[in-house]
C-alpha cells in the first residue's frame, strides 16, 4: 500500500514538473499579482513598459474602440474595446492619458475568452482614451479623444 501511494505521488509531481517545463503553466497564469509598478506609472508609456516591456504600439483598425466624443459626466464614461476580429488576443489594456494614474485596467485572456471588454471609467478632464491589444507579442492600439464637461475625479 505504501509503495503504491508513493508511486502515485511521484507520478503526479512528475506530470506537474513536465507541464511547467513545457511552458504550459507560465508564472503569469499561475500567479495573478496586482502589477503595482504599472499602476504607479505616471505616463502611458511608463505603464505600457511596465506591462509589456515596450510602448511602441501600432495603430490598427482591427482594434475597435467605442467611447463617446463628449462625456457629460467624466465619472462614468462608457468604453468598449472589441478586438474579437484579431486572433490570439492575449490581453487588452485601457489607458486614460491625462489621469493621475493613466492605467485604468488590464484584462488577460485565457483560451476560453473572447477579446472584448466593456466598462465605465473615470476621466478627470478632456483627454485621449487608448486601448492597447497584445496579440502574439504584437501591440496594437486605437485612440480616441473624449471631451469631458464635468470632471470625474473629485474637486
Amino acid at each position, binding site marked *: 500500500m505504501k509503495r503504491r501511494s508513493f508511486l502515485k505521488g511521484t507520478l503526479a509531481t512528475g506530470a506537474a514538473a513536465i507541464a511547467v517545463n513545457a511552458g504550459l503553466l507560465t508564472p503569469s497564469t499561475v500567479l*495573478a499579482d496586482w502589477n503595482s509598478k504599472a*499602476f504607479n506609472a505616471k505616463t502611458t508609456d511608463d505603464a505600457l513598459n511596465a506591462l509589456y516591456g515596450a510602448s511602441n504600439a501600432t495603430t490598427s483598425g482591427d482594434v475597435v474602440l467605442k467611447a463617446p466624443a463628449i462625456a457629460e459626466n467624466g465619472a462614468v464614461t462608457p468604453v468598449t474595446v472589441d478586438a474579437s476580429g484579431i486572433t490570439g488576443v492575449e490581453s487588452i489594456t485601457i489607458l486614460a492619458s491625462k489621469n493621475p*494614474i493613466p*492605467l*485604468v485596467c488590464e484584462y488577460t485572456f485565457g483560451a*476560453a475568452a473572447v477579446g472584448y471588454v466593456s466598462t465605465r*471609467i*473615470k476621466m478627470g478632464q478632456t483627454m485621449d482614451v487608448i486601448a492597447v491589444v497584445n496579440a502574439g507579442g504584437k501591440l496594437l492600439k486605437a485612440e480616441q479623444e473624449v471631451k469631458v464637461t464635468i470632471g470625474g475625479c473629485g474637486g
Partner: protein
Amino acid sequence: MSINIRMRGASKGGVAEIKALIKHPMESGVRMDQKTGKPFPAKYIDILTVAVNGTTAIDAQWSGAISANPYVAIQVKANAGDEITITLSDNTGEKGTESLKLK
C-alpha cells in the same frame, strides 16, 4: 461583508456575453476631502477573474479609475449549462464571488 455582484448572461452560438454590476465605492485614493484637505483613503477593486466551469478565462487588474459601482461586460466561449463564476477582491482585502449557470 462580501462585495455584492449582480450578473446576467446568455450563450449564443457558442459565445456567452456576461454582464455584471458590482456594488462598490471605487475610491481611488486621489480624490481630496475638501473639509480636511486630505485624500479619501483608497478602496477599490483591484483584481477580478472570470472562470468557465472552474477554469480561469479572464484575469483583470483594475486601478481606481473604474467608475463607482462598476459595470463590466465580457465575452467567453461557453454553452448552455456551463457555469460562469466571477471572483473579485479590493485593495483592503474584501472579497466577492457570484456564479451563474448559462441557459
